[in-house]
């Protein structure tokens, strides 16, 4: 139950933050970092469900006619289901995963706007930010999961 509220509040706030950043011209897929990280740390199934719902919500809010985020966010979260919540031991893997998430989410727009040099430079910038932000977000989720005693890591560390 706590995990559900945790996912709901984090997803709502991160969606607002991400869309406001996008309006400021910054493409930082905060939800794209949150759901894969939370899937490994808290609950893969719940993360998958929330990725689906909030991915579609993101498409609706931005007025897209195709549910690109609704498809790509669950796909990014999917590997956690098969790895049974085992987080990668190496930090380098987390850096790499963080750098790979922005280009995957930008895939649908490759044929239109990414052909311009500005858009390409912006994508490279978000890759760099992703490499830094993803491990940070994973650490933050891990710490909050232990503190709130929710999910895989929370339970391993003596949670309910």
């Amino acid at each position, binding site marked *: 139950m706590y995990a559900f509220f945790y996912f709901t509040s984090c997803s709502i706030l991160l*969606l*607002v933050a991400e*869309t*406001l950043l*996008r*309006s400021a*011209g*910054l*493409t930082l897929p905060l939800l794209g970092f949150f759901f894969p990280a939370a899937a490994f740390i808290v609950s893969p199934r719940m993360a998958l469900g929330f990725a*689906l719902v909030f*991915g*579609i*919500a993101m*498409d*609706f*809010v*931005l*007025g*897209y*006619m195709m*549910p690109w985020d*609704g*498809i790509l966010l*669950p*796909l990014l979260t*999917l590997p956690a*289901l*098969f790895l049974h919540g085992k987080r990668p031991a190496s930090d380098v893997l987390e850096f790499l995963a963080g750098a790979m998430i922005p280009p995957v989410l*930008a895939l649908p*727009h490759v044929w*239109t*706007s*990414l*052909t*311009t040099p500005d*858009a390409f430079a*912006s994508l490279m910038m978000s890759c760099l930010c992703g490499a830094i932000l993803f491990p940070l977000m994973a650490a933050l989720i891990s710490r909050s999961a232990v503190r709130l005693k929710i999910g895989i890591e929370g339970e391993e560390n003596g949670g309910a």
Partner: protein
Amino acid sequence: MATFKKKVNVSRIVLFAAIPVVLAALVLTGFFTFRRPLARFSMDFYYPFYQAAKHVELAGARQALAMQPRQKLASAVEQLQRQNAMLAAQVQLLREMEADNERLRQELRMPRWSGYHEVYAEVILRDPATWSEQFVISKGLGDGIETGDLVLTFEFAPRGGTPSCVLAGRIIETSARTSVVATVVNPACQLSVSLAESGANGTLTGNGASSMTALVSRLPLKSKYGIGEMVLTSGFSERTPRGICVGYLTDAPVGVNRAAVVHDGGLYAEAWMKPAVSPDSIRFVVVLTGK
């Protein structure tokens, strides 16, 4: 034992491949089935968050303005007063013309012109991936805005002259409090247009953000068209007033092997149009809704 292990691995691979496909199919089916009500709910749910962010931005802008030197502010106020007086005079003239129009229509027993209601709105949301093609504004169904309404913006004249209204795009989606606008370069934006000098009528369709142009098709072959000719709304459709500037005819975009005006299969001519105002810089808009 080895065969059993192999079977298990194959089924896992099939499962791994099938889940994304099924997931994508489910998402697409759900999305297109419940798109309209869910889109309205999502847009309205998040509206207070964006409005709060806009209030903070506005408060910051006001504070920044208050920090400007008094002399600069005084001259800006003076200039705005001058513009305001000119606009008030123009509005007065237009009111007289409207009254004349109404009287003539009654005399000729023509149907009454319903007119338009203007709704002022600001851009609250944009995505860098579709920055030039669409944006979300702060007014919606609750303010009388409907899908298909025209969206205007202002083109500021140099040296403080009166600003003129030009077409920014069209409403493609609405919720109770917000609306999505497709700019004139968005392929989803289509409208009937006429050319100022030749008087020819055609259909305008956005050509995408990569070229930042729109295509005017179905133009008569006999007329002559030149680069720089003004493109105006034709007023043929119910929600479109006549004579609003949309853009100017231009060269074909880079990478397209066509001249400015070409023949469309030998039956019609077509031309490329550059928008009158860059969609990238639009911050405030006026939506024309039917009265």
